[in-house]
């Protein structure tokens, strides 16, 4: 393996590709559609925080990432759409393939990658200087997309995010005038406007009340009829309710790693690793 200079994002050909097997059976390697992480490592400066994670996120599925705090879930999810590189000393190794294409390849434009792999953050964060409509359309402006019919995009995205009925009469109100749960759905609508194929969500419900959480979970399931959703969550019930596949991360003080990944039912009822069983039963974490 090539040694990494600090701050360098490196591509490393790893000879021992051991992609996790959870979906390999029914999606052949050759024309895999969706997002695929291969042997991912991550560093902050000299601090190795993520070690050799390989995972697949097929189209039209929801994958839950679970694990105790500090095991690198956020770092991993930010690696999947090239947000990791904004942290000054951050470095990575491995590959992230979208429909078979390495998003870290030198000729790939990072902004285009992020356009197709959207992200929703922990705290609902509509743009404060914009109203609801402008918030939904902000991505189109940011990415300089040419679209004919703004109104239908606004309606379509708000509908998919399950917010249209509540806000259709006040599209000119600021995002801040909505409740926390509505704000988060507005943020989802905003991400959808640029038509991503993958939506990454880092604990999207941890700042919300149970009712809003359920609304967002419904939204997530509907989204997964079209795109791949990756959701980090601390809430076991949420992972069980919303995800098709689940991946369990852990750290023993050193870099975080993937313990196991499996269809959610199996991971929760019959995990192959005893630590997974302990974690999903709430024995630690």
């Amino acid at each position, binding site marked *: 393996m090539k040694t990494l200079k600090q701050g360098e994002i490196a591509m490393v050909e790893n000879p021992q590709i051991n992609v996790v097997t959870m979906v390999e059976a029914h999606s052949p390697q050759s024309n895999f559609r969706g997002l695929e992480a291969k042997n991912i490592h991550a560093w902050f400066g000299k601090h190795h925080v993520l070690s050799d994670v390989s995972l697949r996120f097929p189209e039209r599925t929801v994958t839950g990432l679970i694990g105790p705090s500090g095991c690198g879930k956020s770092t991993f999810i930010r690696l999947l*759409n090239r*947000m990791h590189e*904004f942290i*000054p000393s951050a470095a990575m190794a491995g590959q992230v393939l979208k429909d078979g294409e390495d998003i870290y390849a030198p000729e790939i434009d990072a*902004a*285009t990658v*992020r*356009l197709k792999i*959207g*992200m929703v*953050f*922990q*705290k609902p*964060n509509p*743009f*404060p*200087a914009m109203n609801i409509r402008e918030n939904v359309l*902000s*991505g189109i*402006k*940011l*990415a300089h997309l040419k679209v004919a019919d703004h109104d239908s995009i606004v309606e379509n995205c708000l509908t998919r995010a399950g917010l249209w009925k509540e806000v259709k009469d006040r599209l000119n109100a600021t995002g*801040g005038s909505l409740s926390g749960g509505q704000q988060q759905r507005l*943020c989802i609508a*905003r*991400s959808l406007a*640029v038509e991503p194929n993958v939506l990454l969500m880092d604990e999207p419900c941890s700042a919300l009340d149970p009712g809003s959480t359920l609304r967002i979970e419904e939204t997530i399931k509907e989204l997964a009829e079209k795109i791949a959703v990756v959701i980090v969550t601390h809430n076991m019930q949420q992972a069980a309710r919303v995800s098709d596949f689940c991946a369990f991360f852990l750290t023993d003080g050193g870099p975080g790693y993937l313990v196991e990944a499996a269809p959610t039912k199996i991971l929760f009822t019959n995990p192959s690793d005893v630590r997974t069983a302990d974690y999903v039963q709430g024995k630690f974490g």
Partner: protein
Amino acid sequence: MDGVAKTEIIPVPRELAVVYNRADRIFRRIVTSGALTSLILLGLIGMFLFVKSAQIFNDRGISFITGSNWTAGSGDGVIIDDFSIGPMLTGTILVAVIALIIAMPLAIGGALYLEFYAPFRIRKILNALLDLAAAIPSLIFGLWGLAVFTSFGERWSVLLNSRFGWIPFIKVQNEVFGRSPFIAGCVLASLIVPIITSVTREVFSRTPRDLIDTCYALGGSRWGAIRTVVLPFGRSGIIGGAMLGLGRALGETVAVYLLLNIVFRYNFRILESEGGNIASLIATKFGEATEYELKALVAAGFVLFILTLAVNMLAATIVQKSTVRK
């Protein structure tokens, strides 16, 4: 429903008294008196200036502000005292506004570069240099302006005049070009750029990280993120920084004194070699002033005091109105 007595009487609200403990009470007194001290000091200064200059305003009325003569009487009645500050007042504003117009784009651009584009190591060095530059006495800037900048400034003036001479502001009557409001404004701009950059950079750095990340996650560029969240979020800080710079430029004495040809005539042609400002007027005349002239100088100071106060209040209002509420 036993035990739940239904009452018709609406109770009188109890008083909710906030009781501070001992340490809080003492601390509160200290900070209150600190705040009051500066307020009282400001009031006293204003009062002093007003009392000392009351006679002038009484004698001369509004013509003290509109007139354009500063003549000390000869004492024997042949030449009589005639003091007014019109050109100095407009000159003050003119030079300060020129400085601000030049300084703002530089400062905002610099702040954006430092916060979003500069490599980490360069950023640290530049920040340190910036703080250093903000602490350089204005006299040094004045001397630099005189010794170094003037020759560039004159060349730029010639260029400006040849291209845009048809604009009234940029027209000149005498093609001298040195010691003009433009040159003084340029030097004042370099004087206030560091402080404005510093303030705006600080505000930019407080833009919530997840809003910026959101812009990137939507496929936006750095510039997109700056336009979408950083500038709207930093608007009040930009205005605050501008006002800080304007305040400094309005009150600047030495640099203007060194760089401007002080002439008592209304002049709005920025390349013309004449101008002035109140602070430098006071510095020039103070040494050999008669008793009555001294009062006129204090009155000029009072006008400057009010002007600065007004600018700051205006700034506070704008900042309050434009603050982005989350």
